[in-house]
Structure formats: structure tokens, C-alpha cells
């Protein structure tokens, strides 16, 4: 069945290239606009002259390779292509909807400068030329530098262009205060735990060997709601192949609906379950002793430590029966090493507990002997492509990446970043940049660049963020849409969408490492510009021109590609270059190399480095915080058709899923007198209210928590489709718990109560809003 389909796809790829069907001749009986009753309906795009070009997707940060079809000067359709290891010929709903973002009429169109004397957030702007905007920024930055030093300008970035705005430009300018929310608000604990256990980071593309595994245990991992394309493909194929699935989640997630066992765990107790599994695997001696003997360090300490974590102990905490815990552990062991507990992506849940949980998760995998083995975790590294020859940056970038490990800062003449000393890890922590903007401690942060990062829909404590913005001397936002936080900036720089621009090469750590390129399918609309151009022009204004020695991106990319014997021209024909990987330990041993970059060269159960820092060398369970009575723990997750808070003005995706709802257990709803789809308010422990938001009265969630999908509840009137629909989880996150290991911000320690009786906001349909927009 698969094979036949593949053949079909191959055929389709072959025909796309030669898709120059003649344009439909349209009969014009009454030329000149007279209503023609014989006129056929307008021709379809695929009947016209269609050209295609390669890109990789930016609708989320999985970055699938795609082919872009253009007809009549417009992007009409995007598709995956078979040769690309991420898309493998397919795309998720968000990727498919990319054209609707490019043709969003609410886009930022020209550089804007806040009207002198107006309040930040008042939204009063005047149009400016790029030159004027750059001059304005440079003048302010020089003033900040002269008064406070270069470190007092902070950079935050998210997306492919963040290489320019959260790594390269800060490094050239000389500030360690560059951060990505994709670290401390997403992956930080798993990266820190991974580096200190395996001596390797988790790749951006979580390296689960789905194609070989027979038994999968997901811990709060929302595959299916999180539509990371390749992962979803491989997950579904594994299930179709007959792999068994166990899902641990307080909520009957999409993945849980596919599971043979759903363990509705009490929120915030996952670590206890994992420790109990470690206990059973060791006590019953069903772990992979050979693997543990050969590749690990500190097993004895772990065995001794885990003895206390019996299934009975865990049952009292997690509310999962001890028998079930034992049974699943035995099943895992029976399928090992082709049994795997995949690592999720967004793992900043409870702060104090997160790195412990991630280490415990890795330990179960190691005990199953699956790390670097078929059916477990494969090993991968990004392909190496030389950088463009340029002077070394004064300061090595410190932001880290979503998939990369922490970056060592090392000796430098610059002051350390403002979050240094608050946690053990070395990547920067975006939420820790906010407080210094207000307090000036340890030193003032007076300038801020926000590139593609929605600081009101990612960083908790939104009111604190707004207060911090009021203290700044310069706030620059580079974005595509007039998001609420963008309309607070002093200078707004409109970036073009990814379909309209080149970007840097994407070097992907994968089972088969690969390089993919992005080419513009159409010219930038309005007066929008690509990130590389904005960064370079600004760099030149800032006197940093020597670090941008290329004339244009074509020269930059061509030079980089020449280092691997390719060229920009070749890449335009090819889109992706795939390399061979070394996915298993055996592949490394054949070359007499050790893949584990830990001090011991072993997989470390017991961490000397944590012990030296006064931290727990082995994972422990810490009692979760309890909320006030009458409140529910606020859980959040993803809609399969949306990415963060970025896609909520995309007409096609909004039509699919136009507002979120709060999931509330049926019995709790009965107790509160809340009916299904009724509008309610959510009020958190600090009195912050969100809504009106619909109640989703459901059996699919425990009684002690509620759940909403992230990214709704925009308060941005210029985003006509997104504005005011649903509730924002971020706005309800008025507290967080800092993970002392990774610097991650645990966001699930917020509680809300349901306030029934909210008025129906009478939202217009998306179709109605789209009509109004097109008439305006």
C-alpha cells in the first residue's frame, strides 16, 4: 500500500517540473467589463502556467522541505517533496496554509516609528523609510552603548531569521543578552539533562527511531495535536505497523485515543512514575544488564537511590495503580531495546521538577538499552557547512538553539548575561531578561530587539513584561504581523514572509543529516524585507559592516555551499542535500569513536558535575505545589492547525479552528452548573481574568485540572481575525518556577477557577471577517 502510494508521489514530482499547461482561453464576448452572461467561472490556478521553487517551511519550526507552486505571480499551493527527509512528500495543515499568511492583508507593510511623545502601547505610528528607521535605531543604540555599555541591548528571536537577530548581530554588537524562547520556555530541561546524561543534546528533530520501535510510551507528549510532520508520519506508521502505545497524560489526548493503555496521571507527578519504572526495571532485574554494564556510569548509586521508589509509593502520588506501573514496566522490558519513551519538545512544566523528570525519562530509556540502538534513540549530528569567511565575532553567540545544547560562554571582555548565576545551565533564559529591565540589576538593560518572538504570548507575567518595556530607551520589533507586542515598539520593521525570501541554509541533525535551502517564490509584498537584509543594513549603520562582507544573500549562500562542493544554482534544482548518518552506537564503534561526550565517556546516571554544584546527582521527586481550593491546575497544549500564537490571523487556519475552549471534566461542570459550549471566564490565583472562552465539557480530562490550547486570546485590534478570540494561557501565567538546572520556566504552576455566566462575545464568522477585510 505504501509502495504504491510512493510510486504515485514520484510520478507527481516528475510531472510538476513540466507543468506548463497552456493558460485557459477565456471567451470574452463583451470585452471591457460589460457583464458577460456566457462567461465561464474563473479558470483554476492549476490550468495556468505553474512554476515551482524550493523552500523549507516556516509555519512552525520543524522546517519541512517544500515545493512552492506559483501561478499568475501568486503562490497558489505548497507541497512536500519526497527527497526531503522532513516532509517526505507530505505537509501538515499549517504548512499547507502558508500562502494564506503571505496574503494576509493585515500584514505589516512599511517601517513604522512611534510618534514622538506617544505612550508605548498606544499604537500611534508614522510611516518611515528603511533608512530613517535604521538611523533612528542606530542613534539610540549608540546612546545606550555610551551610557551603559553594549551589553545593555538585549535581543530575543524566534524562527529561521533568529540566527541573525539572536546570534549573529548580538555577537557582532557585543552583548551576551541574546535569548530564544525556544530554550527556556520550551526545551531547556531536556537539553541540559541530555547533555549531562548522554553528552549529547537532543536534536531539534527529536531523534526517536520510530521506524524500528515496537513499544512507545508517551509522557504528556501531544503527537497529533502537535503536528510536527515527520514525527507524526513516523508515529502513525509505527502504529499501523503494530507498535504498541501507552500514553501518560492527565488528558485523553489525541495520542491517548490511539493508545492501548491510557494512564490518566495526576498532573505534576510524572517524575514519580518514571522513578517507579526505574525501580521495577532494576528490582525485577529486567533492565538490559549488558548495555548498562558496557555503556553507563553510576548504576550502583542509581539502584540504591531507586530502591525507595516502589510502585506502591508511586501509586499514592500519581493515582496510577501499582499493578499497572509494574505491568507497563514489564511490557517495556519485554520489547526492549525496541521500546522507547520519546522525549517531548515543550518540557518546561513545573520548573523545580523538569530536569529531574527529563533525566528520569532518559534513565528508563538507558535501562531499556535503547539509546543509540535500533528502535530507541538514534544518534545524529548536523551536517557541517563552512561559514562565510568573515572576521571573528567579538562575542560568541550565547542564545543556544531549540535543538542545540547550551553554549559555553568562556572568557570574554564583556559582562556576563544578566541571568547568569540564577541557574546551572549555560544557555540564556529569556524570561530572566525582563526583571533587569525594571530593576537595573545586575546591570541595566535599556534596549530590546524582538525578532519574530511574541513576548506577550510566550514569556509569563505579561504585565511585568509591559512594565519592563516602559523602562526601555529603545524597543525594536521585527515581525510580519501587527501583534500586540509589536505595537508597543519604538520602531517596527516589517519582515517579508518566508515564501518571499532567501534565508540561511538549514543544517538538520537527523538520522540522515541533510542541508536544505529556501528560495523566494515571489517578490516581497509592500515595503517588507528579509531578515538577512535587515540585519546587514542595520549592522552597517552600526559600524559593524566588516562582519557582513557579502553583497547579498545569493553570494553568501553560494560561498557557503561551495565549501561542500555545491552551489546556489545546484541547490535551486535540488532543494535538499542528504548525507549519510551514524545513527547507532555500532556505526561509531566501527570507526573506533565514542559518541558520548561526557567527562567519563559513558552515559552518566550519577552526575559528578551536578554534585559539585550542590545539585542532586540523581533525579528525585519533589512534591508538586498545590493550588488554592476551588481552582484547577491550568494545562495547555496545541491545536493541530496552529503554531504558538503566530498563525491566528491566517484565514484558512482560523476557519479550521477559530477559537479555543477550556476543557472541563463533566462532573466538575455539573457541580459548577456550566453547560457545554457556554462562555465562561477564567480567573487565576492572582485575579487575572481571561475570556470569554467557551467551556468544553468533556470526559477527556481529569477533575483536578483544566486545559486550553495555546496561542489564542490575542489583544491586537489590527489582527482582524485573531483579535479577541478565545483565551490566552500566557496571560494567566502570572507565576513560574525556575528550573535550577536548565533555567527553564515551569509554566504549569498556575491555577484557574471557572467563572460561569460570561456574555457571548458574538464573534463574527471568519468568512464574514474575511469579506469585510477584502471590502475595506
Amino acid at each position, binding site marked *: 500500500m505504501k509502495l504504491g502510494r510512493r510510486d504515485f508521489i514520484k510520478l507527481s514530482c516528475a510531472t510538476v517540473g513540466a507543468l506548463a499547461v497552456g493558460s485557459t482561453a477565456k471567451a470574452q464576448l463583451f470585452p471591457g467589463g460589460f457583464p458577460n452572461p456566457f462567461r465561464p467561472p474563473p479558470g483554476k490556478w492549476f490550468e495556468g502556467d505553474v512554476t515551482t521553487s524550493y523552500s523549507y517551511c516556516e509555519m512552525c519550526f520543524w522546517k519541512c522541505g517544500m515545493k512552492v507552486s506559483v501561478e499568475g505571480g501568486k503562490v497558489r499551493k505548497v507541497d512536500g517533496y519526497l527527497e526531503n527527509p522532513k516532509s517526505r512528500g507530505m505537509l501538515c495543515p499549517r504548512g499547507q496554509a502558508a500562502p494564506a499568511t503571505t496574503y494576509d492583508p493585515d500584514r505589516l507593510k512599511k517601517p513604522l516609528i512611534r510618534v514622538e511623545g506617544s505612550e508605548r502601547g498606544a499604537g500611534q505610528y508614522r510611516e518611515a523609510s528603511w533608512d530613517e528607521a535604521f538611523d533612528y535605531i542606530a542613534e539610540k543604540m549608540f546612546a545606550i552603548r555610551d551610557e551603559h555599555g553594549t551589553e545593555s541591548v538585549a535581543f530575543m528571536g524566534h524562527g529561521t531569521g533568529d540566527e541573525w537577530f539572536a546570534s549573529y548581530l548580538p555577537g557582532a554588537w557585543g552583548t551576551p543578552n541574546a535569548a530564544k524562547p525556544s530554550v527556556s520556555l520550551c526545551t531547556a530541561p531536556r537539553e541540559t539533562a541530555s547533555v549531562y546524561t548522554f553528552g549529547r543534546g537532543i536534536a531539534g528533530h527529536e531523534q526517536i527511531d520510530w521506524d524500528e520501535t515496537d513499544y512507545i510510551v508517551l509522557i504528556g507528549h501531544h503527537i497529533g495535536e502537535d503536528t510536527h510532520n515527520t514525527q507524526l508520519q513516523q508515529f502513525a506508521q509505527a502504529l499501523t505497523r503494530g507498535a504498541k502505545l501507552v500514553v501518560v497524560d492527565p488528558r485523553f489526548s489525541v495520542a491517548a485515543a490511539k493508545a492501548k493503555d491510557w494512564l490518566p496521571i495526576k498532573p505534576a507527578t510524572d517524575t514519580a512514575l518514571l522513578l517507579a519504572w526505574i525501580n521495577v526495571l532494576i528490582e525485577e532485574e529486567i533492565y538490559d544488564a549488558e548495555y548498562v554494564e558496557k555503556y553507563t556510569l553510576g548504576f550502583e548509586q542509581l539502584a540504591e537511590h531507586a530502591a525507595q521508589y516502589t510502585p506502591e509509593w508511586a501509586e499514592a502520588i500519581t493515582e496510577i495503580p501499582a499493578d499497572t506501573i509494574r505491568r507497563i514496566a514489564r511490557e517495556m522490558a519485554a520489547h526492549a531495546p525496541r521500546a522507547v519513551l520519546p522525549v517531548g519538545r515543550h518540557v518546561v512544566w513545573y520548573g523545580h521538577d523538569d530536569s529531574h523528570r527529563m533525566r528520569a525519562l532518559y534513565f528508563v530509556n538507558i535501562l531499556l538499552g535503547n539509546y543509540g540502538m535500533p528502535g530507541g534513540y538514534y544518534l545524529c549530528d548536523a551536517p557541517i557547512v563552512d561559514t562565510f569567511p568573515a572576521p571573528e565575532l567579538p562575542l560568541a553567540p550565547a542564545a543556544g538553539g531549540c535543538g542545540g545544547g547550551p553554549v559555553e560562554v568562556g572568557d570574554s571582555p564583556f559582562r556576563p548575561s544578566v541571568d547568569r548565576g540564577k541557574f546551572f545551565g549555560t544557555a540564556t533564559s529569556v524570561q530572566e531578561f525582563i526583571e533587569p529591565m525594571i530593576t537595573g540589576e545586575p546591570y541595566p538593560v535599556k534596549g530590546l530587539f524582538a525578532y519574530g518572538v511574541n513576548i506577550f504570548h510566550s514569556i509569563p507575567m505579561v504585565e511585568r513584561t509591559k512594565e519592563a518595556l516602559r523602562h526601555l530607551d529603545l524597543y525594536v520589533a521585527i515581525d510580519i504581523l501587527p501583534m500586540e507586542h509589536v505595537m508597543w515598539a519604538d520602531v517596527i520593521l516589517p519582515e517579508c514572509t518566508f515564501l518571499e525570501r532567501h534565508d540561511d541554509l538549514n543544517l538538520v541533525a537527523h538520522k540522515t543529516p541533510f542541508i536544505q535551502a529556501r528560495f523566494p517564490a515571489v517578490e516581497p509584498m509592500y515595503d517588507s524585507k528579509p531578515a538577512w537584509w535587515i540585519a546587514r543594513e542595520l549592522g552597517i549603520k552600526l559600524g559593524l559592516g566588516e562582519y557582513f562582507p557579502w553583497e547579498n544573500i545569493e553570494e553568501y549562500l553560494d560561498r557557503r555551499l561551495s565549501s561542500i562542493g555545491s552551489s546556489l544554482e545546484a541547490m535551486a534544482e535540488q532543494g535538499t542535500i542528504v548525507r549519510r548518518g551514524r545513527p547507532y552506537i555500532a556505526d561509531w564503534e566501527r570507526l573506533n569513536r565514542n559518541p558520548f561526550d561526557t567527562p567519563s565517556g559513558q552515559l552518566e546516571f550519577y552526575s559528578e558535575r551536578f554534585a559539585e554544584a550542590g545539585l542532586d546527582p540523581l533525579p528525585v521527586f519533589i512534591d508538586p505545589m498545590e493550588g488554592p481550593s476551588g481552582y484547577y491546575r491550568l494545562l495547555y497544549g496545541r491545536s493541530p492547525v496552529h503554531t504558538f500564537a503566530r498563525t491566528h490571523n491566517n484565514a484558512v487556519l482560523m476557519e479550521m479552528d477559530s477559537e479555543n475552549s477550556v476543557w472541563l471534566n463533566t462532573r466538575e461542570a455539573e457541580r459548577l452548573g456550566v453547560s457545554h459550549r457556554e462562555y465562561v471566564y477564567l480567573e487565576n490565583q492572582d485575579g487575572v481574568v481571561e475570556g470569554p472562552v467557551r467551556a468544553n465539557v468533556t470526559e*477527556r480530562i481529569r477533575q483536578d485540572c483544566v486545559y486550553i490550547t495555546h496561542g489564542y486570546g490575542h489583544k491586537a485590534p489590527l489582527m482582524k481575525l485573531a483579535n479577541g478570540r478565545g483565551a490566552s494561557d500566557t496571560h494567566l501565567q502570572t507565576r513560574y518556577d525556575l528550573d535550577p538546572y536548565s533555567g527553564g520556566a515551569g509554566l504549569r504552576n498556575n491555577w484557574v477557577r471557572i467563572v460561569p455566566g460570561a456574555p457571548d462575545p458574538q464573534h463574527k464568522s471568519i468568512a464574514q471577517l474575511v469579506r469585510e477585510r477584502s471590502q475595506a
Partner: protein
Amino acid sequence: MMTEFYALPNTEHFWHWPTLIHFFLVAMAGGAAVITTIALLTKHPKVRTYALVTMVLIVLDLITLWIESPARFRFTHVWIFLSFAPAAPIWLGAWGLSVSLVASFFVWLQKGPRALWATLLIIGSALALVYPGLALAANINRPLWTPVVLILFPLTGMLTVISIAHLLKQDWAKRWIAPLSLASVAMVIVYLAGLAMGGTEARMAFDYLMGHGGLLFALGLVLMAIVPVIRRVPVVAALVPLAGATIIRSLIVEVGQIQFFGF
């Protein structure tokens, strides 16, 4: 059972208020054609007037249809007459009305073979009268459009036109109002009973109808039922059954656009 959607099925009403006007006008047009036919066969002295009225009503109805068509600026309607679709109620209705229009025209002119016009009118008027009910009952997926409407709609259609005739002081009309009203009431009761005592889906449909205009429906029923009592009051005796029939017909068309797929 809890259902959520990504994107929505096309469950919105497909017929809107102009269609209700059409259903009213086509009842009159079809009924008028039937009256013209009977007048022609019985050599009624006013047959030319009735033929003229029939023509006017058919033309009005066709204009309504044309106006409500989303395709009115494409001359695609000609395809009705270029195709052969005897299973399509609308095709039958279109031919019925057209034939009635042509025949009425010649009756009014008093030209051509009378027997031919009579034959055409018998077929055409029958089709025109029957077709609205057929257009509804053809949809076995819509539980409010049961086979009973096949009888209910022609009955109420005739009631509509005869009420108007009575209003316009046609002597013969008066004696038909009460029997037609009572027959309509009987069919409405059969209709409701069929729903209320039917299967799961029919009972859901009954509840749905009661929840979406049940009171209005009852009003329509009462208006037709009280006709024998008020028949001596001239204008009222015509308006009351007219209103009753129109309410019942419009509600069945409007509310009946539901189907319980996925409920």
C-alpha cells in the same frame, strides 16, 4: 457523545426567504393552472380570465426563481430545457409551468386546438401543482420532508389559490374552502403523527420542528381548523386559511432543511 470539528460541514440552509416566496407563488400558479384546466374542460365563462391570471402568476414565479438564483447572470437556465431529467422534480416543475404558460397563453388568445391545450394543461397543471411536494419528498435524507408532503403540499396549494379566488369573489370558490381546509388539517395531523410515532430520526425531527417554530406551526394548524366556524365572515374566511396554509408550508420548507447526520 461529544463532537468537535476542524472546518465545518456544509449544514447551512440552502434555501432562503426568496425560496419561501417561490413556494407561495408556485402554489398559486399551479393552483391557477388547475383551475384554468377545469374551467376549460367545463367551458366556464371566465376561462380567459383564469388563463390570464395563470400566466401572470407563472411569470411572476419564474421571475422570483430567476432573481433568487445565484446563477441569474449566467444563462444556464436554458439547460433545464436542453436536458432530459424526469427524475428531477425541478425539471418536471419547470416543464409543467412552461407547458401551462404556453397553453394558457393560447387559451387566452382563444387560438389553436382546444383539445391540445386541454391535454397540455391537464399534464402541465398537475405537474406544477405536485412538483413542490415532490421536490421536498425526494430527499429521503431530510426527515421532515416525509412522503406525506406529497399530498399535503398540493392540498394546501389548492387551498391557497382558492382562498385567493374567494377573496376575489369567485362564487364557486367558497364551497371548496372548508373541505380543502379540513383535508389539509387531516394531512397535517397525519404528517405530525407520522413523525411523532416514527423511528428515532423521525422523533428527533418532530422535536426539532416543535423547537423551531412549533407555536407558529400550531397557529397555522388552528387557522385552517377554524375555517368551518368563520366561513360566513367574507374576507376573514379567505384570509384565515390562506395564512394557515402559507405558515405550514413555509415552516416545512424552512425548518425541514435539517438533517440529523452526525447529531
